[in-house]
């Protein structure tokens, strides 16, 4: 099942929300959070794939599937309410939703940029702000609370031909730092995970991955989900704040 078998049970009594749960990375994270003992709310746009994922996880009493479009504030708000109704609290949120399109900048399609900004940045803002409330409430009850933002390494070496995506990733990185300041002093841990490959559901849209990079990547989503579980399992006073995850043999 998971490469992170050693993490089994470490997140007992946690209620997690995975936004973008049906994506390439989101699936792995959802699976490992369930394996680690957490109750998990799966959030994604496509209800069919969401149900399929929930079925695979085979833990109906610990899993809630909630379809939502992260670019809709109302949708996100509804999911938050549904999660609270079902599990009573939320103390771990992973924002793993995102789309990616790449090309040389001069060949870029402006509508693709708009979509990326909408989902990867605006959607992330919606989710962060909406879930911050229940996360802070969990802190108030003396529990650990974690907000994971999924970014991407923004250097050209790892992501050439993804100018706009890289720009958004830089924005996410900056956002994570500011939120860490703002929420850190209130006891909410904000983490930024930066894998050295696109953190989105590229697997399902080969057209949008013109060079097929990911297929050759040495990194797998398992590594990211393991890191998320580890960071969440640390004692509340410690924050594994920025996690740069690279292939051992860098190209």
């Amino acid at each position, binding site marked *: 099942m998971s490469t992170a078998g050693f993490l089994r049970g470490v997140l007992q009594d946690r209620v997690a929300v995975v936004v973008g749960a049906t994506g390439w990375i989101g699936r792995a994270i959802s699976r490992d959070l369930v394996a680690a003992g957490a109750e998990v709310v799966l959030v994604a746009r496509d209800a069919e794939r969401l149900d399929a994922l929930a079925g695979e996880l085979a833990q109906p009493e610990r899993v809630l599937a909630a379809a939502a479009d992260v670019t*809709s*504030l*109302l949708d996100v*708000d509804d999911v938050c309410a549904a999660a609270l109704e079902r599990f009573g609290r939320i103390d771990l949120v992973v924002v793993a939703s995102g789309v990616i399109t790449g090309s040389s900048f001069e060949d870029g399609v402006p509508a693709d940029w708009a979509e990326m900004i909408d989902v990867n940045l605006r959607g992330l803002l919606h989710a962060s*702000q*909406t879930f911050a*409330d229940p996360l802070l409430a969990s802190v108030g009850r003396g529990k650990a609370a974690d907000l994971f933002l999924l970014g991407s390494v923004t250097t050209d070496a790892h992501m050439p031909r993804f100018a706009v995506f890289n720009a958004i990733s830089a924005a996410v990185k900056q956002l994570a730092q500011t939120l860490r300041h703002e929420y850190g*002093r*209130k006891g909410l841990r904000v983490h930024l995970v930066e894998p050295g490959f696109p953190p989105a559901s590229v697997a399902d849209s080969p057209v949008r991955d013109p060079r097929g990079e990911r297929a050759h990547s040495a990194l797998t989503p398992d590594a990211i989900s393991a890191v998320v579980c580890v960071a969440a399992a640390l004692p509340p006073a410690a924050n594994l704040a920025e996690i740069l995850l690279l292939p051992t043999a860098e190209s």
Partner: protein
Amino acid sequence: MTLAVDALPTARLVRGTGLHRVPEALRGAMILIASTIAALVWANLPGAGYAEFWHLPLGFVLGGFEFELDLREWVNDAIMAVFFAYVTLEVRRELELGELRDWRRASVPVVAAVAGLAVPALVFVAVTWGTDLVGGWGIVVSTDTAFVLGMLALVGRGLPPSLRVFLVTLAVADDVGALGVIAVAYTDDFTPLPLLLAAAGLAVIAAMRFFRVWRGPLYILPSIVVWIGLLLSGVHATLAGVAIALLLPIFPMSAADLRRAQAQVRAFQIWPNPHSARTAEESVARAVSVNERAHRALTPYVTWLILPLFALANAGVRLTAESLGDAFTSRLTWGIITGLVLGKIVGISCATWIMVRARPGALGRGVRMSHVVALSVLAGMGFTISLFVTELAFDDPLDVSRGQIGVLTATALAAVLGALVLGALGARERRRSPDRARLVRPMDPARDPVIGDVDRAVITVIEYGDYASPHSPDSAEMRSEMAGRFGGEAVYSFRHLPPDGPLGTAAALANEAAAEQGRFWEMRDQLLLEAPIESERQIRRAAANAGLNLRHFEHDRAHGAGAERVAEDVADAAAMHLEQAPVFFIDDIRYDGPLDAGSLNAAVQAAAAAATAALTGVAPRGRAAPSSAINPSTGTDARRPEGEPQARGALGQGVHERQVDRPLLAVTRYWSGLHEGPASADREPRRVLREVALDAGQDDPRYGGGRPAPSGVPDHERAKPLRDTQR
């Protein structure tokens, strides 16, 4: 300006109070008077031409079947069926969409109407007791809706508009009673078999409705069958109109139907051809209920043809010294006059008085007992149905003549007395509050959100509105109208006149809560997109789509943000007797013309031209000196001629702070916050205040709900982000 395009039909649909009919009612009443006079003149010409004409037989023979009515019967039995159908359509509309739907509101006029039916009948019976004239009691039960509405339009200026609502409700309830009286008391020679024919016709109509046949003319044939069935059965044939009208459903316009119609019209626009034309026509027609389409189609015929024809055929009484002397010594005539005039006054006034004693405040906004008494005098105008019943009740021409003289006398008497009383009342109210048509609270940029440039504007347009009209333009349209069409001469603001019910007020409060985040107009646009607001969820979706911080939005709503402004608006509206949204004030004067875009535009343009003329020194002709742009807080006049710059600055300042230079303002506030303590202005957009509060080391519990105060961070570091905005 495309303010409230089509607000009129929508308003009618939404509330159906019948107010829209008033100018038309006035016209209708005048035509009715004209044809009554014509009938009287004609009947009193030498010779018997009038009586002979109306007794000319008209009919047809088909094999052995012969059918014949005289001309007056054709009018009274056939054409009047259309009138009764028309009345029934109105009753049904009021029952399902209008005042009668809400029993709490309708109870007073309905009870008054019942007493207004019963007391006159009792008076009539008392006067004629012991004679066989008692059976004519039905003559005095009904008030002529067309006449009283017309009279009210004529002499009711300055009276509260809810009085008209009261009267419409009363008249409608009264019509129901009268229809019942005709059906029950004045049906003779009843033969049940032909009723089956009528039933069959009705079944066909019901089936056509079920299969959504929408072409009106197809309904004519089965309607004729119903009419013939009723005529043969002895039940009064005009009731066919009632039965058919009851089958025509009424429903409020649904957003889905409107969208479908819009799409079809669009398709026709893109590719005009007979098929798409027909589809578009059909979907547009279907969006409106059959009832309303029928009502609208019938209105001109009823006003211009049917009622005048009826008056012409029935009001022609020979007025000779002999006939008058006979009538005014007969108990029948006096029974009718006392019944209609005294009976209506006593019945309606006493019933209302008792109802109001039992349930204070049950009268509409601004309606007082004195209004109702004046109205009850007017209600003695019996005319149409009274003449109609006179014909039914008596066979002896002498009795009919006495009855007609009684009805005409009572109607004229009630009209004159009612006009005098109402006119005096209206004049007194106008004297008391001459500024009723004036806006009580001038536009104030410190409290009113505005579209347009207050600095440059010479006139103000204020709308008292709600979110019921799906056709209101959004703020972007409004901005381009204000800047484009009026060249910045007009400035627009919106105030709340929410409909009854919790959600109407909730939507207004939500709009104000959004203003706390500087998003008044965005929220208004979203609420309009959701209109009509029927659920709390729509408000929440509007807030999300307007891009609000939902947590703060809910917090502000829970703490009544802007409730004061909504309450003030509602109170102002009540003081000015505004009843039904939208109401526009152009330059502080109530605009009472038609609400279509063209008329409104013209009015705004005319006002702007007059104001500009006043500014440039050209004397405005026949127009009061404009005064709207006076800021109550400073008392300065923003429209003084050039050379008094201070005056213009007073208003302009507010707009700059609120709309144009917000980022700059944040910086200014920040510095003043550092040096003078916390910011003071309550109605500034919150995010500005928050920055100030945070960076001045303040933590306003209103905004974060107990956020711990930042500590251990040096002042210069906290100030950093705001300093950046200066660059």
